[in-house]
């Protein structure tokens, strides 16, 4: 399996007639994505090749945008379902983000649900941020106890969005939601902060898989939701190389911008420079020529 393989899976069945994410279509896309990513015969085997039953897996979502633009429960819990199929016990799975309020606003039922799968905000009274300051490169942060105390493995289940400051918010920047002071990392186009937060031991030692929720892609004026510039892309982007996945995500955003007649992020002076920084730090591959991009359509 190529480390820098990135799977882009899309489906005309991504949406219901009412315009909501179609659970069956989402499940099919993710299942197919896992298969193409790992080369295994079926999704359960694919997931089992990535996570063991002993793993305690955190699914870090991005719930900041309410129902309009968050990694919703129909996606996160489908990822969790595939983990179950792959042998990870439900009690070992936690879907999480910064606050319970944001999770609720995004449509989650916070707490313990079916099969023991938990949905938690870091502000849960039993969680919070760890007491020990993590000082790593330019990072000085407290990290969520959910990540450091509840998880041995992490999935960044991020939205794919334009970002006014960073250019792009995707799998790596999703971990800004794991620190107590993300506002301190938004200067300089979030560079090198995105790479440095990802490189910090609490994240780097646990991160195992990136899944970009590209059902709806905010390709301009992000990270807030603006219907005018939100494309129903109907897909997911999966990979084990966090830099490569985000680089492919960037190309998708640029493609949508071009289709809409918008200037590129580079032309707007907002190219996500942190990707090149991350590549230089050895976190992955940013060069599109060195990324094996697999396109898949689930019918």
């Amino acid at each position: 399996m190529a480390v820098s393989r990135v799977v882009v899976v899309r489906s005309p069945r991504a949406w219901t007639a009412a315009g909501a994410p179609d659970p069956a279509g989402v499940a099919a896309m993710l299942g197919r994505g896992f298969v193409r990513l790992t080369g295994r015969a079926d999704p359960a085997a694919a997931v089992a090749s990535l996570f063991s039953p002993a793993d305690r897996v955190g699914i870090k979502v991005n719930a900041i945008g309410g129902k309009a633009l968050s990694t919703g429960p129909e996606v996160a819990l489908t990822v969790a379902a595939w983990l179950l199929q792959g042998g990870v016990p439900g009690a070992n799975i936690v879907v999480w983000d910064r606050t319970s309020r944001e999770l609720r606003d995004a449509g989650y039922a916070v707490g313990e649900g079916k099969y023991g799968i938990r949905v938690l905000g870091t502000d849960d009274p039993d969680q919070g941020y760890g007491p020990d300051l993590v000082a790593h490169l330019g990072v000085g942060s407290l990290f969520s106890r959910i990540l450091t105390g509840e998880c041995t493995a992490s999935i960044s289940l991020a939205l794919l969005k334009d970002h006014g400051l960073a250019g792009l918010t995707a799998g790596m920047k999703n971990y800004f939601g794991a620190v107590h002071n993300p506002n301190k990392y938004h200067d300089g186009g979030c560079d090198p902060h995105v790479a440095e937060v990802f490189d910090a031991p609490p994240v780097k030692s646990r991160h195992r898989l990136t899944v970009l929720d590209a059902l709806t892609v905010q390709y301009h004026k992000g990270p807030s939701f603006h219907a005018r510039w939100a494309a129903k892309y109907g897909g997911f982007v999966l990979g084990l190389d966090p830099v490569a996945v985000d680089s492919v995500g960037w190309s998708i955003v640029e493609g949508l911008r071009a289709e809409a007649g918008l200037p590129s992020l580079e032309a707007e002076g907002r190219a996500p420079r942190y990707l090149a920084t991350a590549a230089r730090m050895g976190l992955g591959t940013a060069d599109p020529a060195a990324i094996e991009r697999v396109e898949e359509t689930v019918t």
Partner: protein
Amino acid sequence: MRRRAFLRGAAGTGLALGAGLPSLCARLAAAAPAARLSRVEARHYVKLPDREIECRLCPRHCRLGDKERGYCGVRENIGGTYYTLVYGRVCSLNVDPIEKKPFFHFLPGTTALSLATAGCNVNCKFCQNWEISQARPEQIESIDLPPAAAAARAAAAGCPSIAYTYSEPTVFFEYMADTAIAARRRGVRSVVVTGGHIDPEPLAELLELVDAVKVDLKGFTQDFYASFVRGDLEPVLRTIRTVAKSKAWLEIVYLVIPTLNDRMDKVREMARWVRDEAGPGVPLHFSRFQPMYLLRNLPPTPVSTLEEARRTALAEGLKHVYVGNVPGHEAEDTLCPGCGAAVIARTGYRIDAVRLKKGTCERCGTAIPGVWT
């Protein structure tokens, strides 16, 4: 019942996923309880198209989309309107000697009701209060203390002033300004302890409301500010110039950090600048660094370095130069520049003797700049 157990019982029914997968999607949750944050519209910002705003409070000029917070972490764009989340949300409240701020030429021997909210618009690697300055307001305990209540509490405690301190008061500008107004009505003065990263317009507004400003000049090179403060030097110098020209009393602190900002040629340059731009009578405090936050690898500042910095500044013509964070050091005293007498003798924050008569040296009559009554 632990909250988790309660929530376990609250989890709902699911949606059918098909493809043989278990059904996991729970019902939508009820609305979240309100967080303990204020929602008072911020001042000094402009609304932009597409629900964006640009903050004009500090030189960062954060441009933010809906649901985003500024670098300070305490101001948020909600639907295209910018709000302060910390109006009246006080996370630290103490009665301190005014010397602790430090103000050495402002009502010596008095106390200041000292308060802070969460947040800061820089990120100094040597911050001694990072637990509150670098936190978001919802992450730390706070009490509700409206401006009038703060003023009343200061008066009741016998404090002639309120100090906005500990974190960075600029980020709670609205609360500070309104509290200063409420305090003035009660005859209580206001003093600000700031890093000086504030835009000219809000600074001008503030200087009409407060009586003294202590600026932390954290270094004298842009490189130092960029690397260790996450800010810029020039806005701080602009603030010092502006305060010096205002009716508010000004003092300056320079925290001397071994190997980072302790070169004497830069100290000399800084002292000359203070002399020329703020005036030779402005008190300058060289404070001792202690290892903390992200600079735990450095030792405390040698006292000899502080003393050398003091000698250097005095040689450049500054009249009142102090050594700080070294309790009992002789350079804590205020000396008369005319005859050398200790017109205010201090030990730490304690005033041992005051030998001033209507702001002049009792011995030789030289005027000592400051606010003495």
